[in-house]
């Protein structure tokens, strides 16, 4: 291994390539590089970059690859725990899940491509995250998808929504990876700038873990999988630009088309390769294609690489090194093989009807060197290329209007003139509360027979065959809360994710995250980013869920309007014994219903306010991290002690929605409930506040005492609020402030049919 300092002295001179444009200040600017950044490049090279080198720097130093604006903030996140095997910096994070198994998991955004072409944008997003997982040596066992769109009442939004869902489904279904959960929000805050985050988790034995390194001087680099075309040239930098009205036009040539069939072959071939022992490292050619995979694999070891462009299998004639290096054609990998085993590698790929070509080799000089028919067209020290990208710590100031928005007095909404039952039906029919069945019925949720809990519960669960164990996963983020109060909003996202996991019987252990924000060069956006990351870190400390990786998507703006700050949390939990698995649905007539936690008058940022009054205002619900923690420990304890029949947390739609969902279940065997609430709160905040740290459980009456005393032990408020009634009884709620009596059929109609009805229109 050579030191970078002595390579610094030996940067080869590279002549400009015949036919390439001259590097001018304008061209530098077009590549999204600032004057200072360009100076830095001159310093690193000791000379002016060639056109090809400029493209390489611009991709590697884009926000997407270089984390210019986010790296200093991300440094503050907790990343360690005894069970963390691989923290941030690799293709994916890895944790120990027991019995010799490890879990690789990560989330990735494809917001901009999906805004331009929803079907292919979302599909290729899934493809990318799958490759991040199986290049670690893990077999993908589940995907999740976290989605945000504008309000469903415009054809454009319905087009984006259905295109994205079809794209995610068609790709994942074809590769044969079950979807196990996700979330969808509709809010004008995402109009024109949808969010498409895809998460994947994969299982492996500890010894199967492999990382993306180019090691062993002389070892061959092989391009594996699909051929390289002109797709998505500059996608990485494009993913860091604001969208403008004409982006439909402008971005056409960049659209990448996914080929899930090739992905499936690549998945099987890669796992076979990794187990064969013929390779030392493997990385997806994701954003910035060969450039990022090649330089990062080298950078991680201090080695260099040399790659010959004419050896790269291309789809179209006449591609320049610039195009080949920056192409984002899908379903490609860069493999560092063991010298002498090239043919063994080829044989495995051949079996899966895929190509593998030697395109270069590992060198000792620490230089990322690109040749075209033997002539240098780029030569850049790998380490600075991958690590010297300048980072920016900006000034963050909250927008003035926010304080006022939070202070908004919401008492005017406390009472309803009219039937509370009607209001409950309206809230249940709101697309943000209503069942997302329309979405996940388009996803294969049962392939490979691992799905112990499918979408439709608080979290999805995949069992680990041959053990008693299972892994649970959820994605959560209420962007309205983060918008109104970034730090607390991010804390609530972590808290809700953890709450969802304990409700199915899992112990939360780690998160991946996707930071979807606007343009960080704006002070109020940077404020949101900084505060949200702070809040996320604080919550992860308390819940002991370190961050093992994630993804940053900035510049999510359309014509200057930013999305709600949306730090999506993808959390993993471990189920010790599948006997503990618990679902939200009431199980038996006569069971006792209990509420753990406290109802509060906290309508701020609620779905009730948005859906019925079009307002996004008020102070989001309070969050006491320690209380929340105690509640979750109590719930998990009760579940593991076998005391509860069902558990469901309160989130969008509040207690009213939680009770309704517990009654309806999956719509197959709904049960009524007779609920009596003592709280002297006005009926609206009582039913629709989205206060944190609350879980509705049901149990056999004989276990109610044990549950109460266990809650007491944890210092968690616990109240018997009623009993489960029969299939023909309504959901009836009596409270000092008012009452509800809703037929299950009406509730089911509102909850299950509202999204299908809109989408059929």
């Amino acid at each position: 291994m050579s030191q970078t300092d002595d390579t610094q002295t030996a940067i080869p001179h590279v002549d400009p390539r015949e036919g390439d444009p001259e590097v001018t200040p304008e061209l530098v600017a077009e590549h999204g590089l600032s004057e200072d950044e360009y100076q830095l490049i001159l310093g690193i090279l000791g000379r002016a970059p060639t056109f090809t080198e400029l493209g390489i720097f611009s991709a590697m130093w884009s926000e997407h690859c270089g984390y210019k604006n986010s790296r200093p903030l991300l440094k503050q996140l907790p990343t360690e725990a005894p069970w963390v095997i691989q923290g941030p910096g690799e293709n994916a994070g890895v944790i120990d899940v027991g019995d010799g198994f490890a879990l690789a998991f990560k989330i990735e955004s494809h917001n901009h491509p999906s805004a331009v072409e929803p079907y292919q944008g979302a599909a290729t997003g899934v493809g990318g995250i799958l490759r991040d997982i199986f290049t670690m040596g893990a077999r993908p066992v589940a995907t999740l998808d976290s989605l945000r769109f504008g309000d469903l009442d415009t054809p454009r939004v319905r087009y984006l929504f259905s295109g994205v869902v079809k794209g995610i489904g068609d790709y994942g279904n074809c590769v044969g990876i079950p979807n196990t959960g996700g979330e969808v929000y509709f809010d004008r805050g995402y109009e024109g700038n949808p969010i498409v985050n895809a998460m994947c988790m994969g299982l492996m034995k500890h010894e199967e873990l492999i990382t993306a390194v180019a090691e062993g001087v002389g070892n061959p680099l092989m391009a594996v999988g699909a051929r390289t075309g002109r797709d998505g040239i500059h996608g990485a930098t494009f993913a860091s630009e604001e969208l403008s009205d004409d982006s439909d036009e402008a971005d056409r040539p960049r659209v990448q088309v996914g080929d899930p069939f090739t992905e499936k072959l690549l998945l099987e071939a890669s796992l076979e390769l990794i187990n064969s022992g013929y390779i030392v490292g493997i990385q997806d050619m994701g954003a910035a294609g060969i450039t990022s995979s090649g330089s990062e694999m080298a950078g991680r070891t201090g080695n260099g690489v040399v790659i010959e462009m004419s050896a790269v299998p291309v789809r179209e004639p006449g591609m320049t090194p610039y195009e080949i290096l920056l192409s984002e054609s899908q379903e490609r990998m860069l493999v560092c093989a063991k010298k002498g085993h090239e043919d063994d590698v080829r044989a495995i790929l051949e079996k899966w009807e895929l190509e593998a070509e030697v395109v270069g080799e590992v060198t000792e000089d620490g230089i990322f060197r690109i040749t075209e028919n033997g002539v240098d067209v780029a030569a850049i020290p790998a380490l600075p290329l991958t690590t010297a990208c300048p980072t920016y710590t900006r000034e963050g100031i909250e927008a003035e209007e926010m304080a006022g928005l939070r202070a908004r007095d919401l008492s005017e909404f406390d009472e309803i003139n009219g039937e509370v039952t009607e209001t409950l039906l309206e809230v249940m029919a709101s697309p943000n509360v209503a069942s997302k069945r329309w979405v996940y019925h388009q996803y294969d949720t049962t392939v490979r027979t691992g799905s112990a809990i499918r979408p439709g519960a608080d979290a999805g669960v995949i069992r680990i065959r041959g053990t008693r164990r299972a892994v649970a996963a959820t994605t959560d983020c209420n962007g309205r809360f983060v918008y109104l109060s970034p730090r607390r909003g991010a804390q609530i996202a972590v808290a809700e994710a953890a709450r969802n996991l304990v409700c199915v019987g899992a112990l939360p252990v780690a998160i991946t995250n996707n930071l979807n924000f606007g343009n960080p060069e704006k002070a109020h956006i940077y404020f949101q980013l900084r505060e949200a990351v702070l809040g996320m870190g604080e919550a992860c400390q308390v819940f002991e869920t370190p961050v093992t990786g994630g993804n940053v998507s900035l510049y999510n703006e359309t014509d200057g309007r930013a999305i709600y700050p949306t730090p999506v949390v993808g959390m993993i939990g471990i189920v010790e014994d599948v006997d503990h698995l618990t679902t939200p649905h009431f199980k038996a007539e006569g069971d006792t219903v209990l509420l753990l936690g406290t109802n509060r008058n906290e309508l701020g940022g609620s779905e009730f306010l948005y859906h019925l009054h079009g307002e996004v205002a008020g102070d989001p619900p309070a969050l006491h991290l320690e209380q929340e923690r105690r509640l979750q420990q109590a719930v998990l304890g009760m579940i593991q002690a076998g005391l509860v029949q069902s558990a469901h947390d309160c989130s969008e739609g509040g207690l009213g929605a939680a009770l309704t969902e517990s009654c309806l279940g999956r719509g197959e065997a709904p049960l009524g409930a007779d609920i009596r609430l003592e709280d002297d709160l006005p009926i609206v905040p009582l039913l629709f506040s989205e206060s944190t740290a609350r879980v509705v459980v049901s149990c056999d009456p004989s276990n109610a005492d044990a549950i109460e005393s266990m809650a007491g032990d944890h210092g968690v408020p616990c109240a018997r609020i009623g009993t489960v009634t029969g299939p023909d009884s309504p959901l009836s709620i009596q409270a000092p402030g008012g009452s509800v009596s809703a037929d299950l059929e009406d509730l089911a109609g509102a909850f299950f049919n509202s999204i299908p009805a809109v989408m059929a229109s």
Partner: protein
Amino acid sequence: MNRYHLEVRVVPRPGLLDPQGKAIHHSLHSLGFTSVDDVRVGRAIMVDLDADSEDQAREQAEEMCRKLLANPVTEDFSIEFLSVEELPARAGSSEGGSHG
């Protein structure tokens, strides 16, 4: 007023990957059709359309493509007239072609 039978042909834009075409091409070769040199797969949308003239019909068809039938980001379209038959004039039929 005539009834035009036309084909709207929607094909993936050049340069874009066409996985389906690739797979069919490969399969044709292994079936022995080695003289096949390229395959791209699109949609053939057969439309029967009432209009006063071929120009009017074409104009409508093109607008349908822009609005619904083709995805401008990934697909190109072409329109081909296959046949035409005359319709007995009926009241209001001249509005047949109007649309918002």
